[in-house]
């Protein structure tokens, strides 16, 4: 990767981090009246995968989708306005945080029922293949999604038809408060499930941008060359509560020590240290980036706040196309 690209990818990660932190700060004002699932701590997966996709490629996601939407190039103002329930939101206020979409960025949609966008992404890949288009479709989901039957149905079909789709599993070890140990057998690696279906499956550190980029690049190439689907498992960690702006280590479902150990492996800090060490940029560069992002965030907040709510007549609009 060129220094220029690395700087750009760091910028994207920092931007997602700062946006998510700002949402957490503002959330207690109760103006964003919808559930939010923040991806703080998981930024490298979103940025690393999307860095290998073009705008024409398609992405789907689940409930924790802010990072994926932003990394794919989704309009930030439209996202924030959506969280505020405004008409200018990406879904005109009808979706909220869990239903982001930006067609011009190839972000075809995120929906929060666990695993449910996996077959839809596979179907989009089938559609592009039937239409003779050369696009890749990627779908992000958490490790609990592989507990859903629909995941198994989807990967079986994707392998059967050699579809240009990439399954991206962000393994953050918890489904809400339920740890992996009560949901999946010990010592059975998730990425190996994919191999059982005949798809290449790989695992890497989801907090390491280079590892994410490396696997994503080869998966995209495989899809483009007609090699079919790839399954990528990235181990990572959500810092905040499952849903909402707070930290919740006090609840006791995970230990403070575990959280701290992951915090030490912060994906944004890790990349920053690397880039400074390699002389690609200095701390002042990052300050400049922060200022620029801060300005963008302030503008988006102002936009979202002053945007109108959808009018009553829109309630019964768009039920049918």
């Amino acid at each position, binding site marked *: 990767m060129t220094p220029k690209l690395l700087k750009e990818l760091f910028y994207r990660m920092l931007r997602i981090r700062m946006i998510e932190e700002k949402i957490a700060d503002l959330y207690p004002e109760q103006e964003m009246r919808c559930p939010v699932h923040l991806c703080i701590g998981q930024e490298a997966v979103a940025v690393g995968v999307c860095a290998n996709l073009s705008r024409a490629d*398609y992405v*789907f996601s689940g409930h924790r989708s802010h990072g994926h939407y932003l990394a794919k190039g989704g309009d930030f103002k439209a996202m924030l306005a959506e969280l505020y329930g405004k008409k200018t*939101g*990406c*879904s*005109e*206020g*009808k*979706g909220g945080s869990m*239903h982001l*979409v930006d*067609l011009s960025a190839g972000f*075809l*949609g995120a*929906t929060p*029922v666990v695993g*449910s*966008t*996996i*077959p*839809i*992404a*596979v*179907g*989009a*890949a*089938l*559609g*592009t293949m*039937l*239409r003779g288009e050369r696009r890749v479709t990627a779908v992000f989901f958490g490790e609990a999604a592989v507990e859903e*039957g*629909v995941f*198994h*149905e*989807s990967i*079986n*079909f994707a392998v*059967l038809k050699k579809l240009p789709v990439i399954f991206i599993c962000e393994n953050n070890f918890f489904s809400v408060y339920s740890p992996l140990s009560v949901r999946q057998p010990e010592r059975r690696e998730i990425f190996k499930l994919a191999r059982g279906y005949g798809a290449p499956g790989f695992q890497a550190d989801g907090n390491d941008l280079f590892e994410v980029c490396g696997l994503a690049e080869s998966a995209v190439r495989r899809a483009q060359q007609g090699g079919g689907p790839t399954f990528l498992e990235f181990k990572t960690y959500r810092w905040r509560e499952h849903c909402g702006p707070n930290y919740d280590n006090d609840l006791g479902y995970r230990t403070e020590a575990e959280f701290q150990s992951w915090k030490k492996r912060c994906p944004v800090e890790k990349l920053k240290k690397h880039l400074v060490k390699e002389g690609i940029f200095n701390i002042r560069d990052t300050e400049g980036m922060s200022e620029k992002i801060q300005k963008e965030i302030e503008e988006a907040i102002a936009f979202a706040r002053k945007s109108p709510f959808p009018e009553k007549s829109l309630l019964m*609009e*768009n*039920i*049918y*196309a």
Partner: protein
Amino acid sequence: MSRELKFFQAVNEATDQSMARDKAVYTMGLGVPDPKGIFGTTLGLQDKYGSDRVMDMPASENGMTGVVIGSALVGMRPIMTHQRIDFALLSIEQIVNQAAKWHYMFGGKRSVPLVIRMLIGRGWGQGPQHSQSLQAWFAHVPGLKVVMPVTPYDAKGLLISSIEDNNPVIFIEHRWLYNITGPVPEKFYRVPLGKAKVVRKGTDLTIVATSYMVLEAFRAAEILAGSGIHAEIIDIRTLKPLDDSLILDSVRKTGRLIVADTGWKSFGVGAEIIARVAEEALADLKSPPVRVALPDCPTPTSPELSRYYYPRAINIVAVVRQMLGMPKKKIVSGIKDISLDIPGDWFKGPF
């Protein structure tokens, strides 16, 4: 004389002509290209359009419903087929949470042009899990359309309209209608969704019926005509969106309403239609409206129990006589008893 086709041939022709006109149309379902071709409705299509557009599929109803939804989002127009509506229950998550809501929940950015054909039926020991009539479930969900054709003419025209519609359409076909014959033009034509039809004019009462129950209503009307009672029959054709105005106009004229549905009585089609009539035209009713529907128990398999389970013309006649204050009498349907659990003498089982 106009050409006649059977219902199943009309479904086949609608699919064929739609695929010929639009490359985006493709069809998928368990057994779609097999030697029986979904009771003939998909026979010959794979030879004509290839295995990319006429696909069999893994036994993964939920996953494959997601797949057809995803393909619809990127420009395809899929037709998915289930040989029994009961199998489609495996895909209820994708139908209800995803297909039905996609257009609305993303502010109208994309829609899901998708037809899901589901077969229903009665008799021949179909039993608890091969015989349900769940149209009311689907009609309950905003964003879905629900179509239930009766005649071969409507089967073709409504299927073509469903394929051309930009929304998810649940297209429910009754196996007992598959062998009925009727005029079907060879040309490509549409029957608009959302329009019910008066299929028999009458003055004394209105029978609103769905799917196969329209035929039973006809038989009932014939019997009643012998007693000088003239029933008006409305074939609903599209359950959702429901054509209220046609029903209300008829009820305002006759003052009496029976709803005959293939599904269960409670919380069903009859309940909804009677509620709408009560809200809009209660003062026009001369007697309480009545639902003719399945009793609230799972479908029994034994042919003997089936006799008491499936409503038939004689049940409708009995309801009408009571509604009009006529004396009770033994009603003879003119149909042999053997036909009670099969659609006709041509049928030798199994489904």
